[in-house]
């Protein structure tokens, strides 16, 4: 199951908090959208800490992070 989190327009620490709530649910993959570098770096760190593999794709004016267990 894929959970989508749109954290564009959110300032720190909101993107991490939203991602944290998402991974607390049953999931295979969590896809997170952020639109600033602080959020990108913070969600990457959170992925590492919560034992997820993370890939980042730059799309137009935002970043798409895919977190896999």
């Amino acid at each position, binding site marked *: 199951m894929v959970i989508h989190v749109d954290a564009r327009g959110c300032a720190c620490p909101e993107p991490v908090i939203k991602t944290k709530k998402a991974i607390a649910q049953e999931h295979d993959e969590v896809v997170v959208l952020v639109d600033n570098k*602080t959020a990108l*770096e*913070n969600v990457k*760190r959170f992925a590492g*800490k919560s034992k997820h593999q993370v890939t980042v794709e730059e799309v137009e004016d935002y970043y798409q992070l895919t977190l896999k267990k």
Partner: protein
Amino acid sequence: MPKFSDPNLLVGFDTSDDASVYKMDENTALIQTVDIFPPVVDDPYEYGQIAAVNSLSDVYAMGGDPKLALNIFCFPEDLPKDVVQAILQGGYEKVQEAEALITGGHTIQDNEPKYGLSVTGFAHPAEILMNNNVKDGDVLILTKALGTGILTTAAKAGLLDEATYKALVKSMTQLNKYSAEIMKKYSVNSCTDVTGFGLLGHAFEMAYGSGVTINLDHTKLPVLPEAFDMAEMGIIPAGAYRNRESLDDVVLVKEKVPLAAEDILYDPQTAGGLLISLPEAEGMKLAKELGGAAEIIGWAEMFNDYSVIVG
């Protein structure tokens, strides 16, 4: 911008120091500083205390004693009166504890509250501690634990337990007065306070201004409880990334340093501690007398490639 110069201006704009210093006569130097910021904690009384501690700190970091202070207060029209009172009360109490006087101030209407003070202090000109006088062979002592930026961010997200929050507020409401009084008994070469640019930013200013390399040992850093965990979780304020970006070329962080420790080194501090540089022979004694969170966190040597090296 036009450059100001005056033979009695001991510290001005150009050395990135903590405050400006003007020599009045052979025995008196005038120290001036101003600092305001938006609320860092929800409690208005604690916010007022923290803002005052932060504003007063620049005078202590220059080796002086604060004497006069003016409130600068921006707040929205609809901010409840008791909140306004509590912020000012917090500020008054800390200025009183500093044995200085609030003699006036200025308020202005603004959408987001901001509070702080302009502080005037005095010192003997020979006792002024600039941030650009670190000597080869000095050790560096930090007097307060790091992580206030990370933990205030975590607190806003409701991620801190009560004990951690209390430790955070206790650190941010502690005047640098007491550390400064002890420091003055030693042959200190240089001093600054750790604030918005993070430990690495302020260590860089010291090292660069002094023409030396400062080596920091990441295992010796005093860090507030939970700050390491919160950094690992990515609860890191935008300011930390800005600090990292601006210091990228001039600071070397060795690979063995964990990412979370690195994030703490760049974390912008509110009402942070003093960073003191003095000869190694006296370093242990001063760190011991300071007690609390104070630790020897590094040493200075002749410049070699980078202004600051973290290992």
